[in-house]
């Protein structure tokens, strides 16, 4: 007597060539009873139809069509049964397609993100409104600092990032949608003024560490600007009492409270500006993103 083998899992069935495209080809050939006609209906070559039918026949180990000598194909009994049996799965596929279309029409959301600094600028406000009207898709906003921009675009936390950020731009499609110029603000003296009214002459430049060093200043005797982070600048905008009187801040233009700040006349000596670059993943599933950013770019450049 042969030795007892150890029971193992039963061998799996074949069928590695029973893809939906093979089954579609089969259904079409069954209806048309002709390979060439099926090929033209499915917009493919006769050769690929024949190959797909052969693959199915090998997977099922059964012939599907026999030639009756008059160029018309005759389905075998197996093919008849298979054709009937495909109806429920074909219905399920149609249902899935409908569901996908529904989600495409009404369930897609465009997540736009930017740093808090960019968010406050009037240019961004205009940009966001334009995107809402042009895209036709629900838009939503989240605040993401520029050092997290690349990570958020890759993970899908946001679809479109506004504003420049440091990092390898190659995975992304980038286009400019204009820029927001800088101006110089001066912290007004308090009313009544403090006892020691020696005005501080500190001068700060808001410069996030994303770009190359500052552009060279044209004049010889120029103010020595000290860089500060965007967070610090925004904090002073929101809490002016924390900012010493007389401090000058060279920052992107955002609405300021004139009670506390004056805007200097020669307000942008170095010609600085904050970029409103638009970035999104190259192979993003939202097929409308490239044309959307193109039309936004046009609109923003004009205005």
């Amino acid at each position, binding site marked *: *007597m*042969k030795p*007892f*083998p*150890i*029971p*193992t*899992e*039963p*061998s799996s*069935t074949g*069928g590695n060539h*029973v*893809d*939906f*495209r093979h089954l579609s080809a089969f259904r079409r050939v069954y209806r048309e009873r002709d390979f060439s006609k099926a090929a033209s209906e499915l917009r493919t070559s006769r050769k690929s139809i024949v190959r797909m039918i052969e693959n199915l026949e090998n997977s*099922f*180990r*059964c012939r599907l069509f026999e030639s009756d000598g008059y160029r018309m194909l005759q389905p075998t*009994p*197996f093919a008849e*049964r*298979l054709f009937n*049996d*495909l109806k*429920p*799965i074909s219905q*399920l*596929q149609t*249902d*899935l*397609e409908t*569901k*996908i*279309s529904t*989600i*495409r029409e009404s*369930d*897609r959301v465009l997540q736009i993100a930017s740093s808090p600094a960019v968010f406050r600028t009037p240019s961004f406000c205009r940009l966001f409104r334009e995107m809402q009207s042009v895209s036709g898709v629900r838009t939503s906003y989240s605040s993401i600092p520029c050092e997290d921009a690349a990570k958020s675009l*890759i*993970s*899908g*936390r946001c679809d479109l990032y506004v504003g420049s950020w440091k990092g390898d731009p190659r995975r992304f499609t980038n286009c400019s949608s204009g820029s927001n110029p800088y101006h110089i603000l001066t912290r007004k003296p308090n009313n009544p003024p403090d006892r020691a009214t020696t005005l501080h002459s500190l001068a700060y430049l808001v410069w996030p560490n994303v770009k190359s060093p500052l552009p060279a200043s044209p004049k010889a005797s120029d103010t020595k600007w000290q860089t500060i982070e965007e967070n610090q600048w925004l904090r002073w905008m929101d809490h002016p009492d924390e900012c010493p009187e007389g401090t000058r801040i060279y920052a992107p233009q955002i609405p300021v409270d004139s009670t506390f700040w004056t805007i200097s006349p020669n307000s942008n000596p170095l010609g600085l500006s904050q970029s409103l670059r638009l970035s999104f993943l190259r*192979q*993003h*599933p*939202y*097929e409308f993103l490239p044309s959307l950013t193109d039309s936004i770019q046009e609109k923003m450049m004009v205005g």
Partner: protein
Amino acid sequence: MMTPEIREIQTFLLLAETGSFSATAKILNISQPAVSLQIAKMEQSVGFPLLHRNPDGAAITAQGKALIPLMEEIRNAHSNLLGRAAYWQRFQSKQVKIWIDGSINAYRIRNRCDLDEPSLTKSEWDYLGSTSDWIEALQNYEVDLVIAGSFLKSDTLHGIDQTILQEEPGITIAWNPECFSLEKDSFDLPEALALSVILPSPSLCLGFRKFLDSWCDSTYQAGLKNFIECKSELDALNACKFGLGVIVFPGDAEKRMGLSQAGLTFSKGFIAPLPKAYAQQIHYRSTEKNPKIIAAMHSLARVFEHSK
């Protein structure tokens, strides 16, 4: 927009179930980049993201989750289709697919068929899996006949009928006297059950483990603690001979498994209250119309009678 292919659906569902690209790649036996590529292709064709790509794994988006129920239906329909197609193919080529469990009787039938029934040797023989999935496989036309044992006509098997080969009463407990000092005549069942116990797996006897668990629970308010499940009766026999534990098997295991010849001491229980406890049966689909399959079933029963 093309509807997703079956492979893409399988990959996506697997990713949703495991939550990891590497696990999915391993199960599908493809590379991890291949998994990513399939998902990316699918996202392009449906037009919205299906995954959030985080460093510690993948999370399915809300839109992706909305597609999962329909995709699962499609995946099941596809595999059922393959099962039925295989069945029709066997129908046409007059083949019968038979699965047997790890019982000595089943193995004896298989060996006898080589001598007595040449027509059956052309069938496809295979062993049951390690779980009791053979019920689903039989319902889905992946297999035509299954020889398996069951205890106490457990859970109704929907759409499946049985031909009974043999019925045996009660249960049998056996041990190696050199390893365990249990008394044969004044046998104490709780004492035996507290030791390491050798049981048949669900594929070897459906419903036996469940019976024992609930009986121990209601009688002793305690479950079985140390047990070894065996997929084949020979494994169980060897385990017992080597002193790994006490055999607790359904029916008249003494005669069926040759316990005395193996040098084991045994005791029987539940003979009166459970006269037809263990049944070894050939399972088939109630709606079976293929004459070849019915004929094969009768041949198997005949071979079993002759082998006794």
